[in-house]
């Protein structure tokens, strides 16, 4: 579709006229994004009667605004209490929470809000003009490449998140195997379900997220009186609006960082199934790789916070590209949107561009407008939200446990899932105390079923030949990158030792 300025202006003004839908959706989306267990997809499912009852424009703008806001909201608990509200915010904990512990929670929240909204805004604008071209990326990725991308993403997470690469890889593979629990895709034969019918559909992701991050964090948290360090507490008590302004300055000073890391999010988001969690970790890794101060990452480095948050929101538009252009949902929220749009009789895929070409652009334009509203709505809240961190851990820990357990129940409404979350909480506690990073286990659990689905598809097409995983040029390049990402930490450590030993002779 040709995009001319008149059409764009008309779409922009139309989206703007729905401010009465956008503002409450954004505020509601931030709240549900911040509560682990209530992502955009299950909230849209809960509110399905509303989306089906209203006209298609209101339904679309409501879903899109809420979707974008939940991606932003997920970063808030990740920064404040080290518990990502959504899987995409797992990488945000690495530097965001470290900043909060130092008493810079307000700055961290403002930077996260700016990175999220501008990351989303930039990628929405790019998508608006490049929608058909981005769709070609999705077409070039087949099941073989998808498997390798997921394994590559998991390897990056294991290498980045864990101090010990071997421990990180063990955690990631353990997560993948846990993710492979449940009935197989073809004959529905149960595998490793421990006799629980509730596990036949696989391990539900929300209890895994809640247990590994929320409950385990609460169990560790009780060791201290406060989340904050001694100096951090003094700083937080004195914090004023100046901290918000400083956060804005720090974020805008790194505008180029926001641009390129959000584009990483967009490109990863276009690949169906890859998702926000991988995008955020890939952006984090790339940010650290090109940084002049890579040693500061993990200790509260602003760029280590900006990169995953910008990418996490870059994904939002990316996941809608395969939905709009091919009719294939790029993620779980896009899948729910597909159902609502089909109910309203909206054709998706190539037919959309023939029957209702303006609709594809209006979806993306709604995102642009939602992000513009979002920046003005959320930044002033940072000062008040950051006060959460001052609550003593003896109060915070029970509150986290009770409300995250409740969140575990919400999606499937099984009491079993609360017990499962508690089990993952104990696994997460052991992982935290022994430096097996919980993010690697969680991303493994998320990717487990997706890896199996794509691997089986590739194998069936190749009539069972396992060498199919090396059958395309793109897959070979990705395998090489995967091997490189594992070898690089060892090679760097070897090189440092070698230089230290040679120093006396120079």
């Amino acid at each position, binding site marked *: 579709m040709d995009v001319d300025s008149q059409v764009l202006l008309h779409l922009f003004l139309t989206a703007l006229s729905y401010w009465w839908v956008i503002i409450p959706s954004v505020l509601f989306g931030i709240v*549900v994004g911040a509560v682990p267990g*209530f992502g955009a997809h299950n*909230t849209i499912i*809960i509110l399905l009667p509303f989306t089906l009852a209203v006209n298609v424009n209101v339904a679309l703008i409501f879903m899109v605004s809420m979707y974008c806001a939940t991606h932003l909201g997920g970063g808030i608990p990740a920064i404040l209490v080290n518990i990502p509200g959504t899987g995409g915010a797992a990488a945000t904990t690495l530097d965001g929470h470290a900043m909060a512990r130092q008493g810079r929670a307000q700055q961290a929240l403002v930077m996260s809000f700016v990175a999220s909204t501008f990351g989303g805004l930039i990628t929405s604008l790019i998508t608006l003009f490049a929608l058909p071209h981005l769709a070609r990326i999705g077409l070039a990725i087949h099941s073989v490449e998808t498997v390798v991308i997921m394994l590559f993403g998991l390897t990056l997470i294991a290498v980045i998140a864990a101090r010990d690469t*071997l*421990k990180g890889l*063990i*955690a990631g*593979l*353990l997560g*993948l*195997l*846990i993710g*492979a*629990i449940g009935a*197989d*895709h*073809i*004959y529905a*034969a*149960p*595998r*490793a*379900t421990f006799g629980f019918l509730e596990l036949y559909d696989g391990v539900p992701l929300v209890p895994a997220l809640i247990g590994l991050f929320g*409950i385990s964090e*609460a*169990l560790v948290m*009780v*060791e201290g009186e406060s989340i904050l360090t001694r100096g951090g507490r003094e700083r937080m008590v004195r914090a004023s609006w100046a901290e918000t302004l400083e956060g804005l300055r720090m974020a805008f000073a790194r505008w180029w960082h926001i641009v390129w890391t959000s584009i990483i999010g967009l490109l990863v988001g276009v690949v169906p199934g890859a998702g926000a969690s991988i995008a955020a970790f890939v952006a984090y890794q790339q940010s650290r790789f090109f940084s002049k101060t890579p040693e500061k990452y993990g200790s509260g480095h602003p760029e280590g916070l900006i990169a995953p948050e910008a990418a996490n929101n870059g994904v939002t538009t990316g996941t809608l590209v395969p939905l709009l252009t091919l009719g294939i949902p790029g993620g779980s929220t896009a899948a729910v949107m597909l159902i609502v749009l089909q109910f309203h009789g909206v054709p998706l895929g190539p037919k959309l561009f023939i029957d209702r070409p303006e609709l594809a652009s209006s979806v993306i334009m709604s995102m642009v407008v939602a992000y513009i509203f979002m920046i003005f709505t959320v930044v002033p809240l940072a000062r008040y939200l950051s006060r959460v961190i001052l609550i003593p*851990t*003896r*109060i915070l*820990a*029970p*509150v986290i*446990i*009770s*409300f995250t*357990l*409740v969140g575990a*129940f*919400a999606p499937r*409404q099984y*009491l079993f899932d*609360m017990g499962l979350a*508690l089990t993952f*909480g*104990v696994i997460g506690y*052991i*992982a935290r*105390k*022994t*430096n*097996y990073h919980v993010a690697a286990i969680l991303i493994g659990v998320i990717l*487990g079923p997706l*890896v199996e689905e794509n*691997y*089986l598809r590739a*194998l*069936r097409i190749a009539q069972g030949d396992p060498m199919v995983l090396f059958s395309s040029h793109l897959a070979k390049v990705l395998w090489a990158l995967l091997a490189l990402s594992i070898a690089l930490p060892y090679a760097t450590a070897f090189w440092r030792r070698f230089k230290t030993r040679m120093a006396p002779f120079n």
Partner: protein
Amino acid sequence: MAEPPRDSAHRADAPRPVGADLILPLAGIVFTIYYFVTIWDLVWEAQVNGLMIGSALLALIAIFLVRTGLDVARGRATLSLGPLLRPLDVQVKRTALLLLSIAFIALIEWLGFTIAVALFLFCALYALGVRNRVRLIAVPVLLALAGYLLFIVALDTRFPHGLVERLLGALF
């Protein structure tokens, strides 16, 4: 330059406790074997993914165990559980939190969402050392009511209903 204190120098040379590091790998071995047993009689499509991931996991754990074994043999590490159970005084609070969580899950069906959340919060706050009466009462009651409004009234989540939900259900 000042000489470092003898105690810290001694601690720097002390062998690392790595016993706790073995818990997840050993659990990984047990789980992988269990996974293999459950797929033993299935068709290849149901086996292949688990076999690929499980074999890679076992291989990495084997490397890890060899590495740890060498560290122990060279005196650089010991098999004590170390950081997992420290600090010991907090272990009591942590265990209490876990037991209360189990009780919360077991009782929520009978007590209903609001009373179960309020009771759990009251007991957990007390177990963690909160003795201020206003906090002990206000925090559980206010948060349980906020949870009721958000999850049951606004989001219509089907949490188990008890006395409070039935009474308030007439209002909302």
